[in-house]
C-alpha cells in the first residue's frame, strides 16, 4: 500500500473507536485487502456506526436541540457583553458576563459529555449560525468578532465534557444558583437585551444544561 493510501486509510479509520480501529485494520491486513477496498470497508463501517448513533436521542438533543438555538442565543449575550462594556453599568456588565460564562460553559460541557462521537455535527450546527450572523453584522461601533466571545468558555466546557471531567455536586449547585441570580438581576433591571427573543424563553432554554448538571450530580450521589 502506498504512503498516500496508507495515510488515507488512517484518516478514514479515525471515524472508528480506537479499539475497533485496531481490530478492523488488523482484519484488513490479514485479508491482504487493497487500498481502495480497505478505505471503502472502513468507510462503510464508520457510516454504519454514525447512523447507529443517530438512532438515539443524544445527538438530536445536543445538536439541533441545544447547539443550534444556543449558538444564536449566546451570540446575543456576547453582543450584550460587548455593548455593556461600552455604555452599560457595571452591574449589567457583570450580570451579562456571568450569564455568558455560565451558559456557554454548561452548554459546552453537556454537548461534550453527551455526544462525544457526534461532536462534529454539533460543531457544524454551531458554525453555521455564527457564519450567518457574521455575514449580516453591521454595527459600526463593534467588531463582528464580539459575537463569538461565547466560543471560548463553550470550547473549555466541551473539552471538560469530552474528558469525562467530574463536577462535584456543590460546584454544580454553585453554577446553577449563580446563573439563577444573574437571571433574576437581569429581570429586575428590566433591561431588554440587544436582541429580540423574549427574555424568559431564552433564559429557560439556556438554563437547562446547568439544571441537567445539577440533577445528574444529585442522582449520582443518591
Amino acid at each position, binding site marked *: 500500500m502506498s504512503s498516500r493510501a496508507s495515510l488515507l486509510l488512517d484518516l478514514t479509520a479515525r471515524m472508528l473507536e480506537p*479499539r*475497533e480501529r*485496531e*481490530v*478492523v*485494520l*488488523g*482484519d*484488513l*491486513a*490479514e*485479508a491482504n485487502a487493497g487500498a481502495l477496498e480497505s478505505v471503502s*470497508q*472502513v468507510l*462503510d*463501517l464508520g*457510516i*454504519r*456506526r454514525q447512523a*447507529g448513533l443517530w438512532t438515539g436521542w443524544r445527538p438530536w438533543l445536543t445538536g439541533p436541540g441545544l447547539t443550534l438555538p444556543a449558538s444564536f442565543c449566546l451570540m446575543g449575550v456576547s453582543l450584550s457583553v460587548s455593548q455593556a462594556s461600552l455604555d452599560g453599568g457595571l452591574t449589567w456588565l457583570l450580570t451579562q458576563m456571568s450569564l455568558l460564562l455560565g451558559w456557554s460553559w454548561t452548554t459546552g460541557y453537556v454537548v461534550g459529555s453527551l455526544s462525544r462521537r457526534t461532536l462534529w455535527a454539533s460543531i457544524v450546527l454551531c458554525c453555521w449560525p455564527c457564519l450567518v450572523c457574521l455575514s449580516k453584522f453591521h454595527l459600526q461601533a463593534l467588531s463582528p468578532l464580539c459575537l463569538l466571545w461565547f466560543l471560548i468558555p463553550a470550547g473549555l466546557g466541551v473539552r471538560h465534557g469530552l474528558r469525562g471531567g467530574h463536577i462535584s455536586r456543590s460546584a454544580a449547585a454553585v453554577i446553577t444558583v449563580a446563573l439563577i441570580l444573574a437571571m433574576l438581576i437581569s429581570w429586575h433591571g428590566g433591561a431588554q437585551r440587544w436582541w429580540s427573543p423574549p427574555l424568559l424563553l431564552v433564559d429557560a432554554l439556556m438554563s437547562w444544561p446547568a439544571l441537567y448538571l445539577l440533577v445528574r450530580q444529585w442522582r449520582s450521589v443518591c
Partner: protein
Amino acid sequence: MLGEFEYLLISVAARLGENAYGAAIREDIEAMGRSCSIGALYTTVDRLEKKRLLETWMGDATPQRGGRAKRMVRVTKQGAAAAQEFYNSVMRASQGVSWATK
C-alpha cells in the same frame, strides 16, 4: 427470531469454535458465496452481543495482522438455542416445497 445473516454468523462462529474472530468469520461467510462487509459483520456482532447471543473479547495480536489485536467471538448458550430455533423453523417451513426436495 434471528435474521438470515445473524444465523449465518452464529453458525460460522460455532463451527470455528476457539478460532472464531472477525477476519476468519468473514472469510468463511465469503467462501459460501455470500458477500460480507466488515461493516455488516461488526454491526451484526454488536447487535448479537447486546442480545447476549454472542460474547466477544480482545484476542492476541499476530504479525500477520500487522501486530493488531483480534476480536474473538464465542456463541453463548442462548445464541445456540436461537440458532437451533431458526434452523428448525426453516426446516419445518421447507417441508414439501420443490426446492427442498431437489
